[in-house]
């Protein structure tokens, strides 16, 4: 489902690579934790998969699509296969929570009928059924994060990328959402979660890819968060 070959990413004007010589294979239906200290390249990894940025060298395939050689006008079709929870949420400030979630469906051309049905459902799933009419600036940090999660999930994408999806959530809600991710994964979705949440990683025992200074230092089936040493 995801394949990276010798991917290196230098940001312009910066001499240190954010990612270096990354080789990763992810099968359809896997659940992966991406861990690593702050600044190790997790967000860069996700941005590459979304084609938000292009790698300096290397090849990337997502859902069978050659990301590098994708025509610009076809990029939206790639992204519609990927649900993404952004570290900084990336909610549209001029749309309400509901409208933000609905936008992911409107992009796909879903009918109003479907939208009116699915949006409240997913809001309920993340515990925000009563906050749908608020604008992002009127939501708490954790609520915004959950709206971002709801938007990523609402159109049942085959791939789910989540960048620090529980950074602003209390442990109980975090566990609930992880259980949700696990359920979705069991139904066939490939899930990749970048996180610092040791409790979560250790309790779920999924495949763990650990980054350090932009390099993969560990790729472990049924791994743990590590790093306490």
């Amino acid at each position, binding site marked *: 489902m995801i394949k990276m070959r010798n991917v290196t990413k230098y940001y312009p004007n910066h001499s240190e690579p954010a990612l270096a010589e990354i080789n990763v294979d992810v099968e359809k239906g896997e659940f992966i934790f991406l861990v690593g200290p702050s600044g190790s390249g997790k967000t860069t990894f996700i941005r590459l998969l979304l084609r938000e940025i292009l790698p300096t060298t290397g090849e990337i395939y997502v859902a069978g699509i050659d990301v590098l050689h994708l025509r*610009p006008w076809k990029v939206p079709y790639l992204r519609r296969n990927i649900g993404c929870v952004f570290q900084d949420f990336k909610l549209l400030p001029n749309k309400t929570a509901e409208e933000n979630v609905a936008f992911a469906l409107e*992009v796909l051309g879903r009918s109003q009928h479907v939208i009116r049905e699915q949006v409240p459902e997913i809001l309920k799933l993340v515990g925000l059924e009563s906050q749908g009419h608020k604008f992002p600036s009127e939501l708490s940090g954790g609520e915004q994060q959950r709206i971002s999660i709801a938007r990523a999930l609402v159109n049942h994408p085959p791939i789910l990328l989540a960048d620090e999806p529980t950074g602003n959530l209390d442990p109980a809600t975090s566990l609930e959402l992880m259980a949700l991710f696990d359920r979705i994964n069991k139904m066939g979705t490939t899930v990749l979660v970048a996180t610092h949440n040791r409790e979560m990683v250790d309790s779920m025992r999924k495949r763990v890819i650990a980054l350090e200074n932009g390099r993969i230092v560990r790729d472990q089936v049924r791994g743990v968060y590590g790093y306490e040493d």
Partner: protein
Amino acid sequence: MRISWFFKEAIISLKRNWVMSMAAISTVALSLLVLGLFAFVALTLDDLITSFERQVEIEVFLKDEAPFQEVQALQEKIISWKEVKNVKYVSKEEALRKFKEKYKDNPEMIEAIPGNPLPASFQISLKNPKNVVRVAKRLEGRKEIDEVKYGQQVVEKLFAVTKVVRMIGLLFILLLGFASLSLIVITIRLAIFARRNEVSIMRLVGASNWFIRLPFLLEGMGQGLIGAIIAIILIHFTRVTFFEKIAKSLSFLPISFGFDLFLKLSASLIVAGLCIGALGSSIALRRFLKV
């Protein structure tokens, strides 16, 4: 159904980004107001100038000895020329009457005139006054004609002045048009620039370029339309309160800030508003829609 969704999006966005919408609408309204008023005055002035130019005439003094038939034949011939609009015959008697009228304060002098020394003449008006020299040249040297007068110097000066007035008017219309276009595009660009994050977020959740562009385009056109309508209302108001008074105070001039012209102008402004609004948002978006 999809199209109605885009319209709904555009209207919601127009309302929620009220500060930016206001800025764009005001810019359109102000720019088109200035442009429209100036064009209105300039076009009226152009009419006036044309009517001045039409007053340029050629005076042809006839020899006293020319027989009446020949003079009549000449008149008919001149009328048949395509450049000529009208030919008026002024007889010797009429010429004398006019002279006496002019010097009526000086009876001594009038009494002193023996018989009628003044010649008969044609007064020729042209369709396009620019041809005055050509027609005059064609008349000179004919045997029935004593002298051809058309105030060469005055005519040349008049045309030099009208040419400059028209040139400056055109320069300003072009300049105002360019400035309006640029200012509106700048404002709409700035408004969209302030929302560039929104655009990039929409792209990241899989919206195609057209899906993003259409609401912005409709929004820009909406702003352009509302701005143009405001400008038209203000121009109408100025026309009624100001220009009509001016036309009255200059009733001796063939001046009219007419309703016809106003209607044509309004239509142009609305089209301009819509186009500039669409153009502005397209240009602004192009930068943020790359990849």
